[in-house]
């Protein structure tokens, strides 16, 4: 392969030893290389690079420009280096723009062959400003219509302030006729025909004068002009280059070796300069001759996931580097859970029945005073969560979010009641993961069955009623995001099957079975009289609904084995 139809232009500013390695790799495989070294690089380092490559006849160094990010210098450097490579190496048909931190992933011959098969194609990502989704800072078309005299890196405040000022004043630069702004990756591979047409354009002076004041011209100069001169633009970059959410390029390390190899891309950037294994592996010639198309899908997914983790995070996780402000949690808790208020009072062995029916973990009163009632009476639970009430009450929100995080994959249900800690009522009500079912007034049943002085019972009843009423108020607020269902005790006892069926269906939607076994209702004989006694003592029990003072309220049709279901 003596043709040397592919030439490289390399823009370098750091890790010059690595750049030299890559340049040598290309040059020794008969690809001319023109290197531009940033003017801000110390003379000694620059001279070292020149010396290191001194033995190679097809390596040139172009005039140095200062290349601050986002400024014209990068374009000027590219122009000068491109002119040099076109002039000195007439055999070159495609010019590949690369950086000093690029690394070829496939043998150069494969790239040459790939380009030989497409001799008139220009590979350059070139997208109209309306269609790019990746610009940082919301500046896309404004890159072309505003002025940017201040450095984005060093004078951010002035930069932002001046942009705001121009927007407010309605200032716009005129875009020269014939120029349709396009943006794209700065790493391209153009044919001699296209590149020389851009560089030898009679209007170039005027065009350059315009682009000199455009922001980040290296992402728009060639991308825009190529549309005027080329009839065969393939709008993609042959260089694999991924950017994170702040617009900084992702870096490749030794542990990316396999994924890079399988990507079948020709060149990747940016490589960490100390990634010895990558440089060693990819710069030794293996004569694998594939013709595969580049397929960076896996790498795309890897970096897309990284960005998602950084911007959205894992729902329900609170940790040292993720502590979202209220309402920015992206999910307050890690998984759906069910809160039952009153059910354990109305039914006997409700917890056991519930866990058997739905296959979920059903706890007792997690927020009971004195002790956390974990399922099975465990003293320590998933994630080494303690059943100590003082530890729980020290930070109840952490307790609940920890429990739900630790038990991901297994739905948690727990009992709640007005006798428990109420600190999380708002938190749960605002949580879309919560399913809250309340039988209001059921707290009176244990009082009814207890054997205490009536004066104490009356006092407790008044207090519990007040607490539950507050909870119900919260559940009626417009901010509620939980799935809330409430029944009065009287309502529920009259027809307990239908609510149960609804709840069970929601917890395990796939089973869709009708309930065959029902938990036993607790015996309420005399409950109406008990409520009347409370009234007689001057306390007004309201949350239970209407219980007749005498005579018994019974389930409307206790014999009906199956609840009515709409399917």
């Amino acid at each position, binding site marked *: 392969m003596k043709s040397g139809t592919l030439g490289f232009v390399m823009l370098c500013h750091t890790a010059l030893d690595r750049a030299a390695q890559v340049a040598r790799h290309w040059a020794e495989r008969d690809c001319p290389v023109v290197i531009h070294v940033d003017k801000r690089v110390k003379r000694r380092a620059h001279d070292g690079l020149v010396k290191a490559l001194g033995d190679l006849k097809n390596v040139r160094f172009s005039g140095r420009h200062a290349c601050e990010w986002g400024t014209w210098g990068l374009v000027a450097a590219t122009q000068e280096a491109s002119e040099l490579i076109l002039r000195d190496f007439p055999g070159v048909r495609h010019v590949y723009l690369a950086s000093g931190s690029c690394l070829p992933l496939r043998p150069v011959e494969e790239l040459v062959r790939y380009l030989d098969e497409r001799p008139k194609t220009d590979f350059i990502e070139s997208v109209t400003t309306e269609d790019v989704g990746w610009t940082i800072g919301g500046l896309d078309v404004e890159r072309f219509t505003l002025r940017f005299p201040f450095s984005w890196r060093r004078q951010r405040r002035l930069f932002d302030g001046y942009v705001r000022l121009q927007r407010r004043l309605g200032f716009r630069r005129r875009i020269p006729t014939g120029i349709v702004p396009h943006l794209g990756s700065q790493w391209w591979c153009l044919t001699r025909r296209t590149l020389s047409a851009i560089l030898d354009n009679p209007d170039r002076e005027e065009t350059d004068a315009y682009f000199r004041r455009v922001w980040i011209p290296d992402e728009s100069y060639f991308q825009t002009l190529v549309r005027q001169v080329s009839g065969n633009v393939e709008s993609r970059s042959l260089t694999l280059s991924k950017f*994170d*959410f*702040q617009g*900084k390029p*992702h*870096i490749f*390390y*030794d*542990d990316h070796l396999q994924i890079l190899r399988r990507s079948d891309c020709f060149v990747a950037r940016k490589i*960490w300069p*100390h990634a010895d294994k990558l440089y060693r592996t990819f710069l030794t010639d293996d004569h694998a001759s594939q013709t595969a198309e580049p397929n960076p899908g896996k790498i795309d997914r*890897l*970096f897309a*996931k*990284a*960005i998602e*983790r*950084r*911007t*959205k*995070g*894992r729902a329900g*996780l*609170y*940790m*040292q*580097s*993720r*502590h*979202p*402000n209220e309402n*920015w*949690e*992206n999910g307050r808790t890690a998984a759906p859970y069910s809160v039952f208020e009153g059910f354990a009072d109305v039914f006997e062995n409700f917890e056991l029945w519930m866990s058997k029916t739905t296959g979920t973990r059903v706890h007792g009163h997690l927020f009971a005073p004195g002790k956390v009632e974990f399922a099975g009476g465990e003293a*320590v*639970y*998933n*994630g*080494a*969560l*303690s059943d*100590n009430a*003082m*530890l729980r009450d*020290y*930070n109840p929100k*952490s*307790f609940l979010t*920890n429990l739900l*995080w*630790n038990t991901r994959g297994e739905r948690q249900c727990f009992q709640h009641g007005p006798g428990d800690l109420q600190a999380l009522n708002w938190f749960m009500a605002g949580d879309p993961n919560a399913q809250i079912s309340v039988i209001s007034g059921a707290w009176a049943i244990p009082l009814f069955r207890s054997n205490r002085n009536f004066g104490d019972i009356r006092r407790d009843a008044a207090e519990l009623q007040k607490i539950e009423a507050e909870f119900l108020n919260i559940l009626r607020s417009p901010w509620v995001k939980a799935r809330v269902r409430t029944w009065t005790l009287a309502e529920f006892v009259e027809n307990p099957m239908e609510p149960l069926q609804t709840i069970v269906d929601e917890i395990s939607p796939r089973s869709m079975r009708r309930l065959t076994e029902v938990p036993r209702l607790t015996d309420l004989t005399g409950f109406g009289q008990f409520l009347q006694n409370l009234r007689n003592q001057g306390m007004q029990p309201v949350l239970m609904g209407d219980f007749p003072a005498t005579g018994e309220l019974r389930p409307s049709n206790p014999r009906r084995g199956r609840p009515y279901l709409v399917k």
Partner: protein
Amino acid sequence: MSVFSRYMLRLARKRWRIRAFRKRRELRPVTDRTNLIRGDQLLVFTTFRNERVRLPHFLRYYRDMGINHFLMVDNDSDDGGREYLAEQPDVSLWTTPASYKRSRFGVDWLNWLQMKYGHGRWCLVVDPDEFFVYPFCDTRPLRALTDWLDASSIKSFSAMLLDMYPKGPFDALPYNEGQDPFEIAPWFDSGNYTITRNHKYGNLWIQGGPRMRMFFADAPERAPALNKIPLVKWHRDYAYVSSTHMLLPRGLNQTYDEWGGEKASGVLLHAKFLDTFARKAEEEMERKQHYANSHEYRAYRLATAVEPDLWCKWSEKYINWRQLEILGLMSKGNWA
């Protein structure tokens, strides 16, 4: 935050720096090899007392990670640790008989050394029983992380303290010099940490783990803080305020995302609960040189008198950093 409180924090920072400057006189150099420190090398800062048996593994662990130089303050050891370190080619050693408590538990001494040698470099401040774990630490050296942090304009990196413990009594297996302590104590609590925000300094206050579960159940507010920011691209104007829990200026404490995302973070594996622990607790009680009137050690001593076992059936056994990531104790953030 009001201009006034910002100004007060500025004054506080200056005060800590002046204090560190004054405390420099307590330090006597044993071996000063700081002339070996070059450009942007990675430095470890440590203060210790009678940790001879731990030192060889400590040095090896951090050398393998890519640390170039250790700057260590010996607080009057009498177990040969000083002599051992003096011979290490990459250690600069100072010694002091002064009060640990009055140097604010070593913070003043290290603040001074960092001010003098850490400016413009990445500094890792760890105790001899703390082992730093960061994303990809099994495949990428620490330099990869600091380069990435530099490129992302991040100046501080958090690593929560994770207490590791053995199954059974602490002294069931003796710790031998040079051994990986996590062969003996590989267990940890994975999901019982509580977090609150400290609005004054802007840091998170994390408590929990086996110590809170076993020793502080009756006084959770006194449980030790586990939030740490041990890795900082140091500037001479910075100062640690309390251990490595928080820094000034307070922007450096902002190592967490408030809008739902995850920033990158690591973990400090804490090899405290080895057979050396009971002896240490006894000694520290005598010296009364620890935090909050040694309440911590008193609680331990009470509990250790009855041979505590921190292990429970929900304890997790340490495998690697990916496990900690999945458990949500640390995060890769957007580093991939």
